[in-house]
């Protein structure tokens, strides 16, 4: 209440540029949600959400259109590539400020960037998957094989998520291998299911799925075959209890709402990149959900908790490589 | 039919104007008239293919409305079109029953009873065709029989035949007429559209003459003669006589040596060890019953089709299988039988059609000189009295004018041998005469001419030498002196063969 009075004088307009579509992408949903929370606290703040579609070649132009109008005090977005997409836009409109989440670029005076330690996020899941594949759970088999299905390859995936997941699994047993497959797009859910089935056929019993709309295919296939799925970015246990065994999340809603609040108040420091870790509370593994506690055997839960806690406390440090 | 008027919407053309026609039971009624006189249109109205703009149709005294061919069939009216409407990949029986198929259990096509019923109709009317053969392997004459059987299968009483003889050979025509007469005896009625006056005289009981969309006259055939009919048709009397200069033949221009053309899956060669010479200043007329290699000879001598053995020479130079482009460079000019599809591009302008054989000569610095083309086109139009602005699409011209454009174009280049195939198909008397005059001019100018035709009058009238093909083999090669139609007929049917030994040699 107080805050809104202090800043009531001038309107503060925010545009959220979504490089893709909101629905089905947890991080984008959280971007919008977080921004909405912050904006709701101020009478003078407005939010416009623009979906940029899947063609990254069009992002720059759409971003430019947003900046060109000059109506927005800050443009926010979420995606590792956005600082690079916006470089020329920033040059053309030097007064425009940008805040990027899930992205990192230090030193650009118009940008404020906020990156999550996704090595930790995927490490959580890799470790759990490792424990499960060695366990006697109904869907687990003696093969030391896990899988990863992605829509396409991109730097954050290759540099953080894939190594993080593998590292986590190998921490359980160095003999575990991770089978890696690509769909080629973000929407062919049926192909995702086919790929998942092909993996199950060769002895994989748990898959981490990072393929947007096509995730649905992986979940479905796993459910049918009694295998397991590990999910990134949001709490999705309810989608398939007992199939989705673990969810590694980023507290994007929280971070976005906090950062936007500061932005509206004029306290954001541009020109800086920040990395957020599990120890800061922005990267986490969901182990409190009853759908987790009820479906994962107690011994595995215990082993998992040990590792998760040590990362949460900052005892086990997993560095983010240079992107 | 009374007071039929038909206007084609797209062109605003009055194809029929206040036309009345009455046909009596059990008669053969001929309709004649120049191209475009409206004969086909009138019959299409009767058959329910074109709605009339005015007028009524009466059948046995009762007025009827015929919305479509199916209704016409039900009323006992059947029509055999000028261009066949058969599906080549279906069998004879399948083609005949199409549209009123016998069924089993109400849903399935009953192939067995189709064959049986068609077989019964064939037998009943004394045709000789196997209902199980594919239409694609039939001769033109047989296809026409299939069309007629198709109508008989539909149990029609009135049979309309649109120019049935234009694609048939003498023998096939005889056969057709026998069939028609038998049908009439069996109680059917025939309407016969034709351009050939002798046929009218030979078979019809009555004749209606049409001109420019109107009925010019109706006569009993026994009361008129050819001369009067042709006067009625064109308004003036036309004489068929070819004023032909005697002329010595020159050197050999083109020679075919042992040419053999095969088709995969077919044992009998399409052209069988054919040897033939074309001399300068000579017209070689090639006759034959359809399906005996005339079309193939046309394709081979113009380079459109490759032969498997033998050779072709031009001025002693081997030009075997050099293809159509090189053939033209060797001095070929060619007026094809299929003038709409092969001979012209109907969507292109007349101008564009005129320059196809030698576009290079209109280039200046690699670019078309539009003025030069214009002058050329206008020039040809004048020389050949072609009606029509050179800028309109070729397809808008009448059949006769299209043929003139083709002829003009083919003669515009320097040529030393020219192939005509069915040059007067579907043309009226005046048009044919123009073409004949040109053919003789070309010969007199010293070119070698090959005239492939199923019209024996044309061949006997024009050719210096007569060649007859039978089953792809040459069975006659005679000087055209006092040869009778009957003799040629015997060769065409394979009753006579002047070269039987050659065949033995070959095998």
């Amino acid at each position: 209440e107080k805050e809104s009075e202090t800043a009531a004088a001038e309107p503060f307009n925010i545009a959220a540029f979504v490089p893709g579509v909101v629905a089905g992408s947890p991080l984008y949903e959280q971007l919008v949600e977080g921004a909405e929370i912050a904006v709701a606290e101020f009478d003078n703040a407005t939010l416009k959400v623009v979906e940029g579609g899947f063609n990254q070649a069009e992002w720059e132009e759409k971003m430019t259109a947003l900046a060109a109008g000059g109506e927005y005090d800050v443009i926010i977005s979420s995606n590792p590539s956005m600082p690079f997409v916006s470089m020329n836009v920033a040059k053309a409109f030097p007064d425009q400020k940008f805040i990027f989440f899930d992205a990192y670029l230090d030193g650009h005076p118009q940008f404020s960037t906020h990156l999550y330690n996704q090595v930790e996020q995927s490490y959580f899941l890799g470790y759990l998957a490792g424990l499960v594949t060695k366990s006697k759970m109904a869907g687990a088999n003696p093969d030391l094989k896990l899988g990863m299905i992605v829509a396409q390859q991109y730097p954050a995936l290759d540099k953080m998520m894939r190594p993080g997941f593998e590292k986590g699994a190998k921490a359980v047993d160095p003999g575990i291998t991770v089978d890696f497959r690509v769909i080629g797009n973000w929407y062919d859910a049926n192909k995702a299911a086919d790929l998942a089935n092909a993996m199950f056929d060769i002895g994989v019993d748990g898959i981490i799925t990072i393929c947007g709309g096509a995730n649905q295919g992986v979940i479905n296939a796993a459910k049918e075959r009694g295998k397991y799925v590990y999910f990134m970015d949001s709490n999705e246990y309810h989608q398939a209890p007992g199939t989705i065994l673990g969810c590694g999340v980023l507290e994007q809603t929280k971070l976005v709402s906090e950062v936007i609040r500061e932005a509206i108040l004029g306290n954001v420091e541009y020109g800086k990149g920040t990395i957020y870790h599990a120890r800061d509370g922005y990267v986490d593994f969901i182990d409190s959900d009853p759908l987790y506690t009820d479906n994962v055997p107690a011994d595995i839960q215990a082993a998992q908790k040990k590792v998760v806690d040590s990362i949460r406390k900052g005892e086990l440090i997993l560095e983010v490589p240079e992107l | 039919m009374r007071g039929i008027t038909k206007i084609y919407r797209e062109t605003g053309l009055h194809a029929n104007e206040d036309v009345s026609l009455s046909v009596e039971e059990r008669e053969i009624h001929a309709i004649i008239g120049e191209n475009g006189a409206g004969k086909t249109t009138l019959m299409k109205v009767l058959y329910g293919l074109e709605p009339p703009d005015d007028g009524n149709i009466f059948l046995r005294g009762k007025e009827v409305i015929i919305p479509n061919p199916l209704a016409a069939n039900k009323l006992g009216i059947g029509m055999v079109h000028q261009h066949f409407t058969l599906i080549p990949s279906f069998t004879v029986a399948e083609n005949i029953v199409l549209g009123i198929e016998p069924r089993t259990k109400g849903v399935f096509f009953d192939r067995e009873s189709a064959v049986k019923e068609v077989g019964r109709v064939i037998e009943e009317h004394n045709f000789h065709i196997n209902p199980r053969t594919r239409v694609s392997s039939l001769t033109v004459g047989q296809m026409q029989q299939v069309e007629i059987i198709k109508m008989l299968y539909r149990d029609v009483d009135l049979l309309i035949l649109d120019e049935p003889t234009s694609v048939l050979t003498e023998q096939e025509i005889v056969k057709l007429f026998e069939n028609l007469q038998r049908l009439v005896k069996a109680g059917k009625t025939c309407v016969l559209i034709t351009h050939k006056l002798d046929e009218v005289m030979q078979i019809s009981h009555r004749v209606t003459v049409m001109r420019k969309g109107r009925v010019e006259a109706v006569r009993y055939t026994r009361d008129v003669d050819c001369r009067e009919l042709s006067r009625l048709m064109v308004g003036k009397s036309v004489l068929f006589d070819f004023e032909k200069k005697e002329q010595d033949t020159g050197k050999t221009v083109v020679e075919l040596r042992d040419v053999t053309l095969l088709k995969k899956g077919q044992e009998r060669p399409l052209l069988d060890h054919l040897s033939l010479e074309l001399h300068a200043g000579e017209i070689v007329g090639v006759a034959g019953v359809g399906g005996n290699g005339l079309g193939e000879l046309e394709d081979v001598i113009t380079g459109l089709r490759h032969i498997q053995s033998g050779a072709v020479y031009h001025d002693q130079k081997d030009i075997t299988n050099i293809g159509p482009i090189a053939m033209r460079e060797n001095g070929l000019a060619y007026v094809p039988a299929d003038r709409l599809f092969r001979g012209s591009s109907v969507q292109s302008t007349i101008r564009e059609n005129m320059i196809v054989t030698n576009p290079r000569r209109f280039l200046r610095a690699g670019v078309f000189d539009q003025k030069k083309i214009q002058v050329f086109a206008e020039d040809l139009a004048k020389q050949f009295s072609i009606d029509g602005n050179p800028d309109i699409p070729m397809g808008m011209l009448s059949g006769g004018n299209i043929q003139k454009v083709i002829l003009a174009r083919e003669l515009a280049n320097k040529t030393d041998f020219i192939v005509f195939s069915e040059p007067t198909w579907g043309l009226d008397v005046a048009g044919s005469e123009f073409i004949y005059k040109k053919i003789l001019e070309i010969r007199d100018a010293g070119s070698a001419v090959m005239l492939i035709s199923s019209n024996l009058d044309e061949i006997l009238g024009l050719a210096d030498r007569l060649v007859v093909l039978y089953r792809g083999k040459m069975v006659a090669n005679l000087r055209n002196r006092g040869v009778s139609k009957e003799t040629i007929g015997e060769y065409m049917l394979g009753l006579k063969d002047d070269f039987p030994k050659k065949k033995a040699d070959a095998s």
Partner: protein
Amino acid sequence: MKHRRTEFFVNTLSLGITIGISFLIVILMILLMSETPLKTMYYFFLGPFTNKYYFGNMLNASIPLIFTGLGIALAFRSSMFNLGGEGQVYAGGLVATFFLLIINESGPAVLGILVALISSALLGALLAGMSGFFRMKWNTDELISSFLLSSAVVLIVNYFITGILNDPNTNLLTTPPVNERFWFLKIFLPSNLDISILFAVLTAVGVYFFLFYTKWGYEMRMCGLNREFSRYGGINVSRYMVMPMLLSGGLHGIAGSVAVMGTYHQCLKGFSGGIGWNGIAVALIAKNNPLAIIPAAVFFAYLDAGAKAAMLHSDVTFEIAAIVQSVIFFLVTARAIHDFIRFRKKEVQV
């Protein structure tokens, strides 16, 4: 002459009616879907003209469409179907980027640009030409083979962009940017519109000239209208199965390199998305007339720009553009409408 004028009148009128109907459908859709229909309509129809940025970008978006439209029209004119535009544009963009990255600082800029244009044209021509060649040699349906080849090419280009040619300094899936020397001059700041629009217009004129004033163009058209006739007339029919595909592919390749040098300055993953497909629509709207392709491409870009503006400033989703475009395609080639007008005109005259 009279004939031609009537045709022109009929064409224009029927196009007008088509567009009118389509716009009515758009208005209806906006009324149904938008809570602020007036605002949405304003941006949809006038958005592209509200500022220089939108207007320039609309024209810029038409540039690759002109090239691909011309490519399609050339092939269509000789009855060949090039359904592989997407892959040819993409591959053209990639190979141009590749050479520009290699050349980088060396030699004059014009030389680099020429190398880029030529290499993209050659690669595009090769890809489409293969389908033409298969057609000529074995009668393999070029429509299907070009589509399949293109689908494979898109994936292979993806590999190069995300693999060995990927820019390590960015998180974008793209090659590094090419040297600024090769960037086409912007002529309508702040928009992206660059000088290549002139190049596109010139190319359209050139293609028109080629088709109607040269022997090859003439022979190509004759083959397109009637192959049997052309063979009979002594035209090398086989050549005109391959040549139009080569030219078509070449123009598609150039569309790719022009987009790289003019707009993107690097080969971004997926930049060719839609350029190839929309070229087909543009060519068909223009009835394969090279000069009519210019307005057709601009019109196409206008619809896209309008939908984008409506999405940015109002509450409808961008995909309504797809619906509008589909309605326009449906109607634009509907010959019945055309005939109806012609018929009417005749009656009035009579």
